[in-house]
């Protein structure tokens, strides 16, 4: 149980990078970008292919990030320059990427043009590198000793991934928070908020949109590259439904942690991604639920996250009104006879 949860937190932190990307488009730019399902795999495919060719995993991961940026920018160009509807531009890019991803992975084999998956079981990845470095620190032994003291028996393999990825995700979060407060970042937010207005203040909104879509998909691809390396497998189908997971993370996070400021919202998105993973893994522990029910569970979780804040607001409002009414009644009954307003 503990190790299962531990594993889902580990995955959740990496998916949080993808969720931050989705946050940029859906929330900041107000652009429902569906490129994500494709660009997540593009990141995985690029990294896995380059690693197979023997490139340094860090370089491969960096290239995955760039590939995602290019993919997102093309969606942006389709929308702003070719005037294709937002949803359609994303969908077109998503299906185009499916073929492109097969081609990218196909580079690793002589016999075929495309290739549906690449195993990385015997390759060096950023995580094997991390493991080599981490095991010299002795932190695992220390933390696991602490856990054994509390009576836990099944212990995680390593704390390295969780701790280092937490640091990486928070670095990304702080950079994003900072960026969204720069002159360019403000223009990006204004483009999502009131595009006509910011154009009247001389922002090239086409370029802003293209850049924001690029940035978003760069993060999505980075997340894909890391997930492929963590699970030691890149697969053409691993991005299916990714956009829903990203949105679920954003919505769950906002529902629990709020979204008043950027700093708060990006934090919420990160924890939303982790909570989503934990909830799914808990749900799968339930006897009669099957892995095939995963999408159904996702839908239910998102619906709950959407309905609860609304219901809570309504309840609060009702209570506030009832209180106010009671107070008024008290004032009226306290008035001397004859001054009472006619009922």
């Amino acid at each position, binding site marked *: 149980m503990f190790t299962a949860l531990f594993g889902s937190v580990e995955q959740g932190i990496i998916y949080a990078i993808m969720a931050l990307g989705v946050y940029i488009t859906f929330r900041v730019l107000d652009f429902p970008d569906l490129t994500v399902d494709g660009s997540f795999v593009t990141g995985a495919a690029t990294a896995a292919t380059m690693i197979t060719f023997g490139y340094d995993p860090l370089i491969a991961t960096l290239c995955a990030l760039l590939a995602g940026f290019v993919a997102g920018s093309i969606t942006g160009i389709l929308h702003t320059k070719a005037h294709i509807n937002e949803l359609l531009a994303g969908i077109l890019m998503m299906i185009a990427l499916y073929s492109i991803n097969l081609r990218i992975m196909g580079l690793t084999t002589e016999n075929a043009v495309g290739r549906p998956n690449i195993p990385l079981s015997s390759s060096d990845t950023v995580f094997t590198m991390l493991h080599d470095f981490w095991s010299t620190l002795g932190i695992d032994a220390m933390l696991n000793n602490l856990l054994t003291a509390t009576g836990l028996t099944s212990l995680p393999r390593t704390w390295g991934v969780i701790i280092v990825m937490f640091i990486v995700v928070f670095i990304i979060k702080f950079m994003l928070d900072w*960026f969204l*407060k*720069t*002159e*360019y*970042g*403000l*223009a990006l*937010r*204004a483009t999502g*908020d*009131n595009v*006509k*207005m*910011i*154009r*009247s*203040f*001389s*922002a*090239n*909104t086409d370029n802003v949109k293209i850049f924001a879509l690029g940035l978003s998909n760069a993060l999505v691809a980075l997340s894909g590259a890391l997930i492929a390396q963590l699970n030691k497998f890149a697969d053409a189908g691993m991005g299916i439904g990714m956009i829903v997971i990203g949105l679920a993370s954003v919505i769950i996070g906002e529902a629990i942690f709020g979204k008043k400021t950027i700093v708060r919202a990006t934090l919420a998105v990160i924890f939303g991604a982790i909570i989503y993973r934990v909830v799914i893994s808990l749900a799968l522990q339930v006897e009669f639920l099957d892995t095939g029910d995963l999408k159904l569970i996702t839908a239910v979780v998102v619906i709950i996250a959407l309905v609860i804040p609304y219901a809570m607001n309504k309840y609060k409002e009702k209570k506030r009104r009832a209180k106010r009414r009671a107070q008024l009644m008290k004032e009226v009954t306290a008035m001397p006879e004859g001054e009472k307003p006619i009922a």
Partner: protein
Amino acid sequence: MLKLQHIHKIFNEGTPDEKVALNHINLTLEAGDFVTIIGSNGAGKSTMMNMISGALTPDVGTITINGKDVTNLPEYKRSKYIGRVFQDPMAGTAPTMTIQENLALAYSRNKSRGLRSGVSKARKEIFLAALESLNLNLENRLNAKVGLLSGGERQALSLLMATFTKPDILLLDEHTAALDPSRAALITSLTKELVEKDSLTTLMITHDMQQAIDLGNRLIMMDKGQIILEVSPEEKKNLTIEDLMNEFQRIRGEKMVSDRALLST
């Protein structure tokens, strides 16, 4: 400063919805001119402004600003030196961003936007001073989201933002029309103050004839896509609403029909 020459614009040409919005418009503004524009609904006033701002491109004709032909310059490039306030108080600001962030957006209008902090300490001082001049107590609400402000407050902020970088041309499209009378009066006096302070070259559309007479040094009347009357600075000094009504009747041979124009007398 600003020159419109032979501007024509037809919407939906060749369809049953065809509409001649602008029909041979010629207009020249000198630096510091403040021109008020009146005219019935659908006369083409907003269309003319959208031509100047670059939101629309004329079918025929040229637009020159400071001697430079800007007819085909995209809107975002032109807006470096054109400030605008729209009728809708929601249109001129970004609602989910704070007051100081909105001012930062306005402040960057004539600069290139980079990775500098949008609201730096030095800028905050500038923003505070500007907000204080509005006397709306907004200087104490720098971190309030603009969406929470009232329509009048938002319009005042829009006006401040539009004039913040002293644009070469200021375009006001019925920017007091959506406000209640007392708020409208406040925005009108603020307009006067801000325009005079930097002697901004201004075009202001209004359906309030008295406002059109009180403000500015020149006045034009539009009808059916044409400028049918131009009132010079000398003539404008003694102009009355009655003069305008009579003039319209003389030119068009019919009584002025704009109900809004009549209501506001």
